[in-house]
């Protein structure tokens, strides 16, 4: 449980961090909250020779409110969960961040770290997908934006290029007729998602469903949109029967991971149960 030796840098800017990444190549790893990286170091699953600590880079911090919410990558879950602008404009993000791990994890873990790490049981990727958030990154070749749908490639793998840093993530501010929810079956010890479902809906004035985005995390190797559920819901009345029918379609084409706490069969069933719960809640919120 003791990591191998490493060199430690604490750059003052993103540019400096990128410079260090380029200088040390494969040897180097970014360190944010450390709540995925440090366990991996201690178990010696990962043995980088250089750690570049970006947790105190000022430009990676802060929540900027406007038409959209722009959140710095090094912002902690605790900061997100208690931020008035998030609670007012994008409450589902606070709802999700507030359920991650325990207090220690929430005080250290960061938005950028969670997305870059892409743990199959991480919560935030589902919300990022359901809200169609945009991930701003910066690298040796400059800055670019990655759409949520392109971000999560496979287990522990994202669309980030080598030496790219997640800098900010932009979320929509939800208005009238919109609602979102995150429903989670927690691992009893770690609180990671065994199944986590994020749902977003927008309703027409008559109450029928104009748009829906649903994403599942925890059950399989990566967080995934649930297109069949979304299509079934759009155009429906958004009532209990329509939600139940749409939820039955969730997880049908997914790959599953089973473990000693929950088999693949159980996860498959729970994807439907939690999709229904997330959708019921999202619709109820959209109706106000």
């Amino acid at each position, binding site marked *: 449980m003791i990591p191998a030796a490493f060199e430690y840098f604490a750059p003052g800017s993103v540019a400096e961090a990128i410079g260090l990444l380029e200088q040390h190549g494969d040897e180097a790893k970014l360190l944010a909250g450390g709540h995925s990286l440090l366990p991996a170091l201690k178990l010696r699953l990962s043995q980088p020779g250089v750690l570049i600590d970006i947790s105190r880079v000022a430009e990676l911090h802060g929540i900027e409110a406007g038409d959209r919410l722009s959140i710095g990558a090094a912002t902690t879950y605790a900061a997100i969960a208690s931020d008035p602008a998030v609670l007012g404009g994008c409450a589902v993000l606070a709802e999700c961040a507030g359920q991650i791990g325990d207090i220690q994890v929430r005080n250290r873990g960061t938005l950028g770290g969670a997305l870059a790490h892409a743990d199959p049981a991480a919560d935030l990727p589902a919300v990022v997908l359901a809200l169609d958030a945009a991930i701003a990154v910066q690298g040796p070749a400059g800055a670019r934006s990655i759409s949520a749908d392109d971000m999560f490639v496979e287990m522990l793998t994202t669309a980030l290029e080598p030496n790219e840093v997640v800098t900010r993530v932009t979320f929509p501010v939800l208005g009238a007729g919109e609602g979102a929810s995150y429903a989670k079956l927690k691992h*009893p*010890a770690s609180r990671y998602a065994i199944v986590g479902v994020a749902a977003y809906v927008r309703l027409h004035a008559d109450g029928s469903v104009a748009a829906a985005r649903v994403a599942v995390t925890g059950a399989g190797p990566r967080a995934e949109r649930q297109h069949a559920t979304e299509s079934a819901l759009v155009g429906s009345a958004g009532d209990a029967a329509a939600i139940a029918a749409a939820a039955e379609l969730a997880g049908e084409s997914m790959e599953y991971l089973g473990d*000693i706490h929950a088999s693949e069969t159980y996860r498959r069933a729970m994807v439907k149960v939690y999709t229904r719960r997330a959708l019921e809640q999202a619709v109820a919120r959209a109706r106000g």
Partner: protein
Amino acid sequence: MIGASLPRPDAVGKVTGATAYPGDLVRAGMAHLAVVYAGRPHARIRHIDTSAARALPGVLAVLTAADVPFNRFGLIDADAPVLCDDVVRYVGDRVALVVADDPASARAATALVRVDYEDLPLVGDVHAALHPDAPLLHPHRPGNIVHRLQIRRGDPDRGFAEADIVLSETFRTSWQEHAFLQPEAGVAWVDDDGRIVVETAGQWLHEDRRQIAAMLRLPEDRVVVRYAAIGGAFGGREDLGVQHLLALAAWVCRRHVALVWRRDESMATRHKRHPFTIETRWGARRDGTITAVAARLLADGGAYASTSQEVVKIATLFATGCYEVANVALEGLALYTNNVPSGAFRGFGSPQAQFASESMVTRLARALGIDPVEMRRRNLYREGSIEPSGEPLPPGVSVRACLDAVVDELARQPQSAPPAGWRRGWGVACGIKNVGYSFGYPEQATATVELSGADVIERAVVRTGVADVGQGSHLAMRQIAAAALGLALGQVHLISDDSAATPDAGSASASRLTLVAGRAVHDAALAALARWHDEERPACATVQFRPRATTPLAAADGAGRPNYCYGYTAQALEVDVDPATGACRVVTIISAHDVGRAINRQQVEGQIEGALAQALGYALMEEFQMRDGQVRTAGFSTYLLPTALDMAPRIIPLILEHADDQGPFGARGMSEMPLVPFAPALAAAIHDATGAWLSRQPMTPERVRAAVRRATAGEEQP
């Protein structure tokens, strides 16, 4: 004094961290031990090469089987090697012991001990163990049988023929990990008198001493065992853990040595509660009279004997629960496998057996349309009832009173609704568990009391080797002595943690210390008082208390007088079930216990609440898992324990006091009993809520959901 909720004198030190547990005894300059484990479930050792490990700087010695004077240990059957010589039989078997200047060097050297193994075929579970071609784990044990017994009474065939209804079911329970707070640790050295001294935590000073002396081929008075504060035990410190390893290293190396286990070492190598498979058949008449019970109980004993023999006897004796049944045919079988050994754990076979028996009583009641409480009342043990072994129960049969107390309390419960979408149910179960050693095992406790003072008694010194594993026995012993002598608590001093300074009180197990050691303290106090009145100064008396004798069970039919005292209990649980996910939430627990006499009421309630937490974990989530002889749950991220958030918000302990005829002030033991009825009461509540029957423990969400779906599908069938 008796019954008062006196605060625990040890509490402040334990909470502030001032108290020394065994791991706190490590001092600068001590040599450190690290164990080389087998890491494989079944293999022949061809060769052990310790040269690379010995060459590592800081390493003082690497001990192997050749260094152990008598290389066998065990509580009942000394069948476990201290360090394996020829064969390893489970992953946690110890192969070598490194002694080094510091812990890091010791650990590093373990990786350099090269063991050349030839893997042997795996005996992965009881079914594999029973196979006619199964390899034998211990060549002198045909059929891989640790112990087999049968108990027959009446005419089972006729009993089943007389039944209006016969139900059969197979129940399964899992291993349970003791999960005490403080992993095994200790220190040892050879003192100036040439005695080997071991300071650690355990459950029975004098038994640890006996086994260490046997291992070192020393007379027992050359071995001293002392206990520091003990961070929980629950049966998990009955088998030797680090005691003998410390003694061996100190003796061979003539050094002060220390060993502190990591949690994963503790979990992966120590014995567990036995997993049982119980196939059982119950017959009853329409009026609810149980006419016959047949049961076959298979226990996975793991690699070594430990206490399997006694556990399977207890489980078999309780296969009919606390019900008088005229016709019984019971068979119990404990088997060797290449799994972690199974041994003592709070309840000692009773929870497993009564998960089956209590569940069957509820099922019979439901099938007959009789209220499960009424069904119990018709069949419960009464004063003078005959046990399966054919003899009347010891006096003081109070299970009916426990059940009545629970039912009265139930009637007073406020009505409330479960959360939306959840279903709520109530379940009731009873329980029985022996107090003290069984089946003719010599049972005694000895205490010495010395009174000093001039005109009046100023001070009493009580000596008895009682291990306070956290249950509060030290305070209980002092309260008993103070009450017997009419002294204030502060005048009574207890010496209890040193095998050289105390007489043998037996183990902290089988809920026995309050009754047996408490009675010895009580009687010694009165004897010393008599001498005080005869003007002896100081007045000193030693008393050995031996309760009513028990007998072994006859081989042919199990006839005998197995126990001298029983503890009785009944429980009701209110449980919410989410049928969609299978999640269960225990809302209310009513737990009634006849404790004879509460010596310290707060401690009794503490034992009830603590045992209920362990029971809740066992019933709902705790599942130690092995596959192909490898441990899959060696930490608390994989082995799930309940937390405060999982406990029932309402716990109502009911303490009954029907005096026992042998215990001090009428007290009888109670610390295991809350574990006995919990799981079957939970299963009954789940059934009440959803119509689903659970027959496998733990009742995880996945299993509950599957059972609910089966039950619902059954309803839909024509």
